[in-house]
């Protein structure tokens, strides 16, 4: 079964039509995981690529992500066995002392669109809260954001806390935000630096080899 029309509808961001096409595909006997992988995530791959090339604007990209999420809601009751298979679980948050979240929210939308499961801890997230979430949610990547130079040191604190709790070997760490640089990421022992939402997706895929 081809999901080309569904993909095109997701790329266009037509939420109503995409949800209907998803329902129809289920009615026609398609497998939920197959619809997700070949229809929705495939569409978001195209969206991600077009966005990276500058051929799509942020609101269009986010509309596609929103359209995909709505289709996922339609699919959810229909997954077999263990449920939906994702590319991995990412714990996201703005670090302790920092309340800025526009950039972090963009990253969350993009990663979700690319097929990752996102646990968004919000803003002002303490190192302890990151550690707890990694354990509880079985997180494979921790993504930290900071807008202020004065809150950047909380990234290092969080990495130390993850190490102390014994998670550092099993979890990858990605950081970003206006004052953050690739050098800073290296200096605090993060696995990578993502300058924007698009590269966060590329880096997450690379880190988990998916």
């Amino acid at each position: 079964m081809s999901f080309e029309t569904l993909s095109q509808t997701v790329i266009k961001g037509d939420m109503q039509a995409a949800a209907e096409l998803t329902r129809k595909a289920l009615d026609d006997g398609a497998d939920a995981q197959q619809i997700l992988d070949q229809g929705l995530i495939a569409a978001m791959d195209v969206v991600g690529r077009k966005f990276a090339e500058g051929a799509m604007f942020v609101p269009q990209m986010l509309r596609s992500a929103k359209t995909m999420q709505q289709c996922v809601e339609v699919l959810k009751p229909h997954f077999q066995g263990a449920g939906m298979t994702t590319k991995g679980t990412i714990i996201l948050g703005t670090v302790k002392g920092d309340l800025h979240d526009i950039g972090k929210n963009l990253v969350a939308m993009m990663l979700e669109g690319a097929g990752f499961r996102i646990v968004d801890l919000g803003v002002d997230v303490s190192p302890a809260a990151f550690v707890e979430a990694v354990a509880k949610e079985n997180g494979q990547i921790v993504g930290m954001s900071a807008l202020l130079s004065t809150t950047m040191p909380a990234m290092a604190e969080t990495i130390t806390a993850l190490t102390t709790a014994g998670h550092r070997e099993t979890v990858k760490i990605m950081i970003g935000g206006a004052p953050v640089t690739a050098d800073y990421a290296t200096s605090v022992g993060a696995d990578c630096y993502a300058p924007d939402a698009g590269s966060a997706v590329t880096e997450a895929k690379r880190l988990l080899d998916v």
Partner: protein
Amino acid sequence: MQLPTVPTHQPRLKVFDRRQALAVHSAALEILEKFGVQMAHAGARDLLLANGARLYDEYWVRIPAHMAEAALRSAPRQILLYNQMGERAMALRDDHFYFGTGSDTTFTLDLESGQRRPCVLADTGRFARLVDALPNLSFAMSMSNPRDVPNMDFIYVQAFAEMVRNTNKPMVFIADRLEDMALIHQIACAVAGGEEALRRKPFLLNYSEAISPLRFPENVVDKLIFCARKEVPICLPSGSNAGGGAPITLAGAMALGIAENLAGLVIHQLTQPGAPFLFGPNVSALDMKSAVVSYGCPEWSLTQAALADMRDELYGLPIWSFAGATDAKTVDAQAGAEAMFSITTAMLSRCNLIHDVGYLEYGSTSSLEMVTLADELIGMARHFTAGIPVNPATLALDALERVKDAGAKGIFLTDDHTFDHFESALFLPDLLDRSRYDTWQAAGGPDLYRRSNDKVRRILAEHNPAPEKEAALLQQINQLLEAAR
């Protein structure tokens, strides 16, 4: 013959008429009444509630219009800033405009290599010294987030002290929270000769930010209240950028930003009626491809011009604004075009305190060359904005008569009238090149970046603030910095 002397009209830009100004103001008041703000600061919350605001949900406070109107009435219409010698330097009011640099860039263009690299404390000093020397820049900001300070928690204290060492001009400073703000205030008191002297003749203004939409973190409100009590002038924009913290349409983004500014002003004026508050919400736009806040877009210039009209029509309070910045990564044609656009429009709309001069890369990188180039662009715009004086001396019929009478040898260039007036009549560029081709080529064909770089090097080699800071003061500052290690 009697030639006329008439007042000189100085060109002005108008974006909002009175009805638009009133409509945006009304929307801002409606935002405060309907949604209010999320006030994390318990003291400020109590203060608001005791004066007529209403609490709902967790920490959300609705603020009735009369509280905002009362704050607008009690805030002063003029903020006087002095230089560090206690001389009057900036009268922020009405149509007075002053340009200066910006804060907090992560990177700077290295003067030697031209490469983008992380900022260090010496960069803060270099930018302050450059501002001290340039004629069209009236105040200094740090222009950098130095990475080589002993304790990142006190980064702003170190930057402030470094600026004091390198300029005598007024300063706009950043602080993170009450603790470093208090330390900066102590240093400022030492410079001014005591707390009372600083209160009487402030040489500094704090820049703090709430968070759009409608969020007031505790540390930010701490700083606001501290400044009100000490009468340190402050501005509190929120970054209600179109498409980011605020609606994509500029009217909505302005209404939100103004509502947030008014909420800050209410707390400020309830804390200390008559304390100086610089108005202005900072409404730029998020770029729809990169999601960065643009520093070269026409929208920011448009909203601050509209805000200047709101000042004239309604508020009467001096305003905070930006210009002379760019999204370009190097000092290139885009940088020049964007910087000149915002400089000219900010000046023509008579914004009062205009910062961020010399920013590259949407405020992530600073450049000494860009600051120097922008200083010249400001001079050029200033010349335009002064208009054309019309009087007997400028109509110059007597000069014409002399040249006519001299017959074939007559030339205006040799006439005394030219000698007497050329420096005021014309803008005389320094960096912008009008030399003949051969002269330019003989000099190695330097482009504008190269010429700006040469000028920066010359200034930094030759210029020191005068008078120099006294050794006893510098020692006192060093002692205060012990607390910032």
